[in-house]
């Protein structure tokens, strides 16, 4: 059927059976909340409270509460928007693109990564909506018949493309995630003892029985959704980059932006997946499912995308000089050596230098090092967007309008608040939803657990039996 290399590490360790997978994943859904989870939720709720207060101030007093001025009209808001959308992209990459490439290691992380996508896009959407100033008129961005004559929205504007891209991305990701959850909800339903849990998961599982025909259609739907989500995710960040690239601001008006933004998005998204997964596996004891092999695979994606981003920074700088355009050259010199030099060099250090440490196998396979570097990448990618947006705007063609940007406490509050919102949603997900896609992990178990199952006498069961050397010894360094 298929060949599995003898040197490939097992993806599920600890000699698990199908029932063990059900038990391990359902445990935290069924058990009472553990104290570490409750403590984390309490911290996240403080963040959420900060968010609500900052949004209240923004709505009540207007966006004058933010540090924006006439020169720098986009700053933390759009930086945060792009940062969150970018983070979301790793979830789709893991669930869709790696599905098309038949990468089995995605199965135990795709559920949480997709949840991350959905929550990150929710956080991202807050910023452009709040930046409108009057969010209750947000529906004006839709092409609705209206009373202003029949004045329609401007389909030539990348900001409108964004409306369509982000909303399509959110809804398709949500559907993809939900389709994957249905069989796992059915598993929880069939184990549920309490009447509330049984009813809730009955409704959520939509009457799923796991019949052969249902699975056949389910697989077709997953594959086609993956095929649709792949160009979709690339289009979303392409369109986000066009918000900048189609304008004539020096430092923005470049054709390199779409691929550069997509690589950056995947880079930051994988960093966030790593940050979340390293904590989740520890808190919920999922070390046998999210193994060092998974961490290493993700770190390899980080090296690749981090290097692409590094090349993009260099290319940008080179082209600015090579173009011979005075304004473009100044924009880049100003980025690196102007008043925002610290932001530029933070970006360079976090995004270009730190991920290169992953060339060393020891660092790539160290959880502590990975966790620290993933935080560096998260920070670096925030600075990247800040550098692109603020340094390009603050000194434009007219020196008389040059200005600096500094955030207000409300700016900081909205940003920190969305982190609170994100973690509130993510922690609720961890408690009430299966964090690992049980059905998919069971499907790869026989070929990827490194354990020889009984019935190997059947000729057909020979796909992917691992050699004896691969029997599972617990990883000592976890």
């Amino acid at each position, binding site marked *: 059927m298929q060949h599995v290399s003898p040197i490939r590490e097992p993806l599920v360790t600890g000699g698990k059976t199908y029932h063990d997978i059900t038990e391990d994943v359902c445990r935290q859904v069924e058990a009472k909340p553990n104290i570490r989870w409750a403590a984390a939720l309490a911290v996240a709720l403080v963040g959420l409270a900060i968010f609500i207060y900052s949004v209240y101030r923004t709505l009540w007093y207007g966006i004058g509460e933010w540090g924006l001025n006439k020169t720098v009209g986009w700053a933390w808001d759009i930086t945060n928007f792009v940062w969150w959308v970018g983070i979301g992209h790793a979830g789709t990459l893991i669930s869709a693109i790696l599905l098309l490439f038949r990468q089995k290691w995605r199965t135990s992380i795709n559920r949480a990564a997709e949840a991350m996508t959905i929550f990150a896009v929710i956080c991202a959407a807050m910023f452009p909506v709040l930046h409108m100033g009057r969010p209750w008129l947000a529906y004006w961005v839709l092409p609705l018949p209206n009373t202003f004559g029949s004045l329609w929205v401007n389909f030539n504007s990348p900001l409108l493309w964004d409306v369509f891209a982000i909303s399509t991305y959110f809804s398709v990701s949500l559907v993809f995630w939900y389709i994957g959850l249905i069989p796992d909800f*059915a598993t929880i339903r069939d184990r549920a003892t309490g009447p509330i849990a049984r009813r809730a998961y009955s409704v959520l599982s939509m009457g799923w029985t796991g019949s052969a025909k249902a699975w*056949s259609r389910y697989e077709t739907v997953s594959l086609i959704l993956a095929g649709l989500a792949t160009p*979709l995710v690339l289009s979303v960040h392409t369109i986000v980059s066009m918000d900048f690239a189609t304008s004539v601001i020096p430092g923005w008006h470049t054709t390199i932006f779409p691929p550069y933004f997509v690589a950056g998005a995947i880079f930051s998204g994988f960093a966030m997946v790593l940050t979340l997964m390293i904590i989740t596996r520890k808190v919920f004891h999922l070390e046998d499912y999210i193994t060092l092999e998974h961490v290493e695979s993700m770190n390899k994606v980080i090296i690749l995308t981090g290097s692409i981003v590094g090349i993009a920074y260099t290319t940008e700088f080179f082209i600015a000089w090579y173009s011979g355009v005075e304004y473009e050259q100044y924009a880049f010199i100003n980025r690196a050596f102007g008043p925002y030099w610290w932001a530029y060099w933070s970006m360079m250090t976090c995004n270009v230098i730190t991920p290169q440490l992953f060339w060393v196998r020891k660092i790539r396979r160290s959880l502590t090092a990975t966790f620290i570097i993933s935080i560096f990448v998260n920070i670096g990618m925030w600075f990247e967007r800040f550098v692109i947006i603020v340094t390009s705007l603050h000194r434009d063609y007219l020196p008389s309008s040059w200005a600096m940007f500094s955030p207000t406490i409300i700016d900081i509050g909205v940003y920190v608040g969305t982190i609170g919102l994100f973690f509130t949603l993510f922690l609720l997900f961890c408690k009430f939803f299966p964090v690992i896609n049980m059905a998919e992990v069971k*499907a790869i178990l026989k070929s990827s657990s490194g354990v020889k*199952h009984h019935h190997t006498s059947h000729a057909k069961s020979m796909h992917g039996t691992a050699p004896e050397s691969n029997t599972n010894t617990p990883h000592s360094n976890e």
Partner: protein
Amino acid sequence: MALHQNLTLIHLIAMNKKFVLGIYDDEDVLLEAIENVRAAGTKIYDVFSPYPVHGIDDVLGIKRSRLPIVAFFCGLFGTSFALWMQIWMLGFDWPMIIGGKPHIAIPAFIPVTFELTVLCAAFGMVITFFIVQRLRPSLKVNVFDKRSTDDKFVMAIEVKEGVTDMNALNSLLRSNGAIEVNEKEVIK
């Protein structure tokens, strides 16, 4: 198993169906059993598994799903609708000069057209999937054996009163690796 208790409880109702359930605990044994059971001339009602078993479509004779075709036509609808909408709105209903571009600036319409294509294809296919698979929020679920969403593979064979030889069926399933053979009645 509590199955036998259920069986007596619902025995009085006339409109019910009786099934024999072969329980398996390995996908490859299951696949071979399906082939042998079908070769023996027994019709399999359905097979339930905790995950998609590769190769089961072939041995059960399940045809390829036509959902991709649905997705294609829904996507095509999305493309046409988006193009019509943009061309009509900006080209005919309220033409305006924006940035010196032509009223009908096709390259600028590509992003929205693409997004609506994906949106319509995805939602059209998923809604169709829910309809044909009869997936809807419901409190009543007819699962033959609850272990089939956990770690067991369940082969259900419908019993025709007076036609099916129960003993032969039992031994056919067991000789093909079933770890248990149960009976279950379902009210229709």
